[in-house]
């Protein structure tokens, strides 16, 4: 059981870290603002989700609940924030 939990932690956290790497690469390499934005939000939502998943077995009940709330908040925030940023970027391009 504990082995299984440890395995979940290692896989989850490792994969999460990888997605953060992917998000960074996307932010730096992708050609224009909107594609960068897409890549970024996908990657960091997924990355944080996987890390939270990996940490769940080690966090206890109330701690785990908090972790999930945090993830949900980040999902909410980043989707709205990216929409807002996208609007600004879109308008900026039209004006240019």
């Amino acid at each position, binding site marked *: 059981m504990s082995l299984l939990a440890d395995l979940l932690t290692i896989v989850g956290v490792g994969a999460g870290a990888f997605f953060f790497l992917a998000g960074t690469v996307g932010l730096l390499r992708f050609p224009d603002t909107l594609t960068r934005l897409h890549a970024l939000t996908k990657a960091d939502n997924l990355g944080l989700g996987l890390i939270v998943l990996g940490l769940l077995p080690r966090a206890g009940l109330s701690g785990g609940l908090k972790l999930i709330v945090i993830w949900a*908040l980040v999902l*909410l*925030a980043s*989707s*709205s924030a990216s*929409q*807002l940023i996208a609007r600004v970027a879109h308008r900026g391009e039209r004006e240019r």
Partner: protein
Amino acid sequence: MSLLFDIVLSLIVVALAVRVIVAEDGFAAVVSFAAYGLLVALAWVRLYAADVSLTEVAISGGLAGMLLIGAASRLRAIDARAAAQRSGRGVRLFAALLSCGVAGGLGLAVLALPDPAPSLAEAAVANLPPTGVGNPVTAVLMAFRATDTLLETVVVVLALVGVWSLAPDRLWGGRPGAREHADPNGPLAFLARVLPPIGVVVAVYLLWAGASEPGGAFQGGAILAATWLLVIMAGLSDAPATHGHGLRWLLVAGPLLFLAVGFAGIWLADAFLAYPTDWAKALIVAVEVAKLLSVAAALGLLLLGPPRRIDTP
């Protein structure tokens, strides 16, 4: 391993700080500053100061970040003009030299701090029981050095009076900020409907947790203020008129209750701002609740700025 982490974190923080100063673009400087604030919050965790980290996140990251980003966008027009007045190379070099001298002196002072370090940690823990709270930082803020905290809440109110006094005469007592016309179906309005309940819960939680764990009225108040500003920015509720009596009493309620409890201490516990042992925790929590509301209102209004419009009947 963790030392390496600290070193890398410090280097990134300093690099970001340098960029804040030397960035050509004013907005890039502000954004770098926001990133810097985030990383400093991590540094506080590394320094075993979760209370400070919470404050840094809520106040510097949340409120100051919003404030500065807003200001940078509005001042964009004159940014280039101001930047053209950059000092000559010689002056910059001389300034850099002197700054290095000051920083070097400070570094020397840090390394020369005495060993073993003097500390009040033991005294604080030993005197914790009569205050009734479990978090030593809260005990320092609310009991051992409560006077500083009291004066600080007054400072916040005074800063707000100062900001309001910048309004043109005819707008005195009016509402701060521009009138928001928000898209009721946009992402902002959506956030402004979903987040406030969570924000209130988190603020109250931080206040409640503050008695025994990291947290407290300032952190909770800052989060409450940010939540309030979100609702205003989304256009779901207008900024309040600054002549309102309810608002003004709310602003001073925290410091006034603090003062009242302080003076009651002269009779009940033989000293100003002393708490009778049995009542200590209840009184501290009561003051914290009032402070939470006052601080939230004051910080929110500080960010909204001076009154800018008068209601036309």
